[in-house]
């Protein structure tokens, strides 16, 4: 795409570059790879929340199936309360980590801008990076949570009973696996997105000159 700029003598052109989303994703994932040790705490935090939510929901399902347990209002309120607290903790840790990370990365933001990135590109690079971390955390937590649930069931019931349970309740188990994955990923990504949007917006809109602290 090109923009024509009329001058008194002739017409000149400045080409417009639209960075593809794929380019920005690849930059964001390079950043995650190179800074993984900085993000490890936040990944562990998100994983723990995912594990907790998964275990609570897993045992609720087992109680319903095995003991014909009726989930009443107080248990629902308790489950919701625990989930909200967990997500609140994730939000606080994401906000604080990102405020710190952004302050530390001001120069980096200036370098992107000097290299030709628009503020929207910088915003997207950082937001994709955050969502990527959220995704890694939630998937890791999901896998670990399922393994923990399985190990605990085998410990309680033995291998044969556990296998028999899964064979008898294939539909419920599959539905549990799919619905929890489909709920947890967008839910945690939303929390991470909302928590990170303020620091990233502030940083991406800063004047290049202020981020680089170039002297006179």
């Amino acid at each position, binding site marked *: 795409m090109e*923009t024509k*700029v009329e*001058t008194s*003598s*002739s017409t*000149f052109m*400045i*080409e*417009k*570059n639209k*960075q*593809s989303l794929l*380019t920005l994703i*690849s*930059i964001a994932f*390079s*950043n995650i790879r*190179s*800074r993984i040790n900085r993000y490890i705490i936040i990944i562990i935090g998100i994983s723990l929340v995912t594990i907790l939510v998964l275990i609570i929901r897993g045992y609720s399902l087992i109680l319903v199936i095995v003991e014909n347990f009726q989930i009443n209002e107080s248990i629902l309120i308790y489950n919701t309360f625990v989930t909200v607290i967990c997500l609140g903790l994730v939000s606080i840790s994401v906000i604080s980590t990102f405020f710190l990370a952004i302050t530390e990365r001001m*120069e*980096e933001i*200036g*370098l*992107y*801008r*000097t*290299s*030709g*990135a*628009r*503020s*929207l*590109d910088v915003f997207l690079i950082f937001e994709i990076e955050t969502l990527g971390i959220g995704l890694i955390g939630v998937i890791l937590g999901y896998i670990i949570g399922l393994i923990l649930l399985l190990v605990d069931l085998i410990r309680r019931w033995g291998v044969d009973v556990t296998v028999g349970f899964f064979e008898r309740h294939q539909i419920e188990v599959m539905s549990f696996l799919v619905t929890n994955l489909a709920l947890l990923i967008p839910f945690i990504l939303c929390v991470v997105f909302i928590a990170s949007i303020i620091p990233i917006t502030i940083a991406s809109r800063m*004047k*290049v*000159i202020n981020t*680089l602290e*170039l*002297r*006179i």
Partner: protein
Amino acid sequence: MNRLDVKDVEKIFHEPDGSKLQILSNIILTIHEKELIIIKGPSGSGKTTLLNILAGLIRPTAGSVYFNGIDISQLKLKQLATYRLNHIGYLFQHWNLFPFLNARENIEIPARLKSLTHSIRKKKVEELATFLGISDRLNNRPDEMSGGQKQRVALARALINNPSFLLADEPTSNVDTQTRTNIVNVLQEKRENGLGLLIATHDPFFEELADKVYILEKSTLKIIKNDSINIAGGVKS
């Protein structure tokens, strides 16, 4: 023919105490492709400010900067980003590399922002790295490199998108003689291929090669050497 024209540029900074600090006053300057222009001047005289205005990083208080006739002082932020991406290479005095990325990833950033394919990027990075003698350092991070190597990585990053103009702030101030020779040779070759250079430096090496040498003092620019002949028909190199 690419050209940058600085017309009556003035820059005033507002100090926190409310006073005004005039950094640049009535600056007039033209840079053509293949031209090497040196700006000298004491520390704090406004050399970096002038480079920042030419790169579109800050706007002048008065006056205009034209790139091929387009007034970049009037461009929107998005257009300025495109101008920098396609036409300007900026070399900082203190390298300013991405600390967590290795040399290859650092050099690649502008090419990635330009959405060049992986194979083209790889080819360009390797060409520049060989040219600058840093092929063996491509997998190292900045904290594993010497000052000279960091400066060459920063130069490769500034050159990867084949800019029309390179703006360099003291490019050889923190490097040894061998690296300096290497940097000067690379810039000379790029210049022969059409790159216009505006360098803020006190390095006599560059002064000898320069078409024009200016001194920035008391916020005004004075020419002290002019070797250019017949700009329209080509520049003396």
